[in-house]
């Protein structure tokens, strides 16, 4: 390594740093990010063509079943997964738990998910993400929440959906709502932008930026309840730029086959012939829970604000 590159980030300004974060999110577009809990699962994910893996202790459906407090994945487990894969490794920190995030940054994970799937550490504050060099992804259920997270420094968004249910309906609702809110914003007269910013609880400058560009300033992926190739293609058709699959793969009857099929479907989401090909011979999908019948207290999407 020559001197020029011994410390490439030296002197990089905040704006350039944010661009490198968003650029990695851009590189994941059109791909599938898979939840994995072991090194073996990570190898299956990479073999199936995942663009990245999310290292965690338990998949969301197990967290939902077991209850208790869900925390950042053990450090040894993350390291083990980093050692066996060459694709980006993401990991989850609890909402507001900036120390878990600092630990993940020290491990050099490629993305931190400040996630409602884990038990929130702080009910009033999210992590101040702009002070980290590692990029963050956060969940959002509507435009206001999306822009608050970007305001804090998130470089990628995802729908919250309802994780661990295998029911795609909430991810669909969040994607449609954000899409509708963006189109209403672009059509509103410019003098209404401050009022809209107040109503959404969103930073004014980001409201103006979305109004002018007609899109979110960072990529928006789908997550929460995606269980089949058809689910993955549905959220892509609704404007998601990539797909997170949690319990849907390793809780299915044949994880490798399901993983391959979801990658295939996400890449060819507009081609029904390809989708029917991808959906053949899969065996049982994960068992599902009707997300609309969950009691309020069990709805993970209500965590964070």
């Amino acid at each position, binding site marked *: 390594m*020559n*001197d*020029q*590159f011994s410390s*490439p*980030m030296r002197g*990089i300004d905040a704006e*350039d740093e944010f*661009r*490198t*974060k968003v*650029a*990695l999110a*851009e*590189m*994941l*577009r*059109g*791909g599938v990010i898979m939840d994995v809990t072991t090194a073996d699962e990570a190898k299956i994910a*990479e073999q*199936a*063509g*995942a*663009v*990245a893996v999310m290292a965690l202790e338990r998949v969301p459906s197990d967290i939902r079943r077991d209850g208790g407090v869900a925390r950042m994945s053990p450090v040894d487990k993350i390291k083990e997964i980093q050692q066996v894969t*060459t*694709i*980006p490794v993401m990991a989850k920190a609890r909402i507001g738990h900036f120390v878990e995030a600092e630990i993940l*940054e020290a491990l*050099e*994970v*490629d*993305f931190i998910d400040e996630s409602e799937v884990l038990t929130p550490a702080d009910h009033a504050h999210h992590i101040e993400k702009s002070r980290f*060099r*590692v*990029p963050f992804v956060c969940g959002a259920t509507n435009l206001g929440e999306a822009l608050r997270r970007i305001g804090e420094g998130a470089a990628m968004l995802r729908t919250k959906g309802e994780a661990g249910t295998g029911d795609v309906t909430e991810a669909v609702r969040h994607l449609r709502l954000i899409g509708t809110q963006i189109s209403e914003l672009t059509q509103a007269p410019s003098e209404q932008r401050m009022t809209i910013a107040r109503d959404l609880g969103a930073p004014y400058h980001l409201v103006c930026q979305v109004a002018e560009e007609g899109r979110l300033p960072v990529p928006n992926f789908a997550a929460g309840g995606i269980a089949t190739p058809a689910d993955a293609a549905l959220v892509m058709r609704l404007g998601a730029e990539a797909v997170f699959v949690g319990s849907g793969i390793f809780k299915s009857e044949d994880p490798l086959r399901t993983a391959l099929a979801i*990658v*295939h479907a996400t*890449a*060819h989401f507009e*081609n029904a012939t390809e989708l029917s090909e991808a959906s053949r011979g899969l065996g049982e999908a994960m068992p599902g829970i009707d997300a609309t019948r969950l009691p309020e207290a069990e709805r993970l999407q209500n965590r964070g604000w």
Partner: protein
Amino acid sequence: MEPHLHALHSAGCDPIEVRTPDQLQEVTHLVLPGGESTTLRHLLDLHHLSTTILERVQNGDLALLGTCAGAILMGRDEGEDPQRWSLIDVSVQRNAYGRQIHSFIAPVQWKSGPGSGESEGIFIRAPRLEQPAPEVEILAVCGHEPVAVRQNRCVACTFHPELTADPRVHRWFLGL
């Protein structure tokens, strides 16, 4: 893919997305985008696109521009996974600068090809080009390191020209 489509538009052509063998037959210039080379390789193999691409390139019938992951596939085969195509006789080391925390933006100096002068290089978990054979033309360097190279009608960049507003690389590539 989309930033490349946008860059190709700005460079004055009307690009299509290639996902199937039929679509591949329609193009004279093909861009292999960034992302993960394992994923890219997987999707190319799903429809046996790799074989057709290699045949057409070897017949001089297809020009290739690979950025980041795309550049990795085009390099010299040295037994790594995913397998390389040996279209450009250069060793390409994956993730050579480290994980995302070491991604960076730095100026790139053009020596030939798209022009002289400087452009912005966005390096994301970037690979590094090592030991280019004499027939490989160095198009651009960052510091002392080659970051864009060419052999015949194959061009490999370890950075992402598609993420900047400057369409020079794409415009020059379309002329190959």
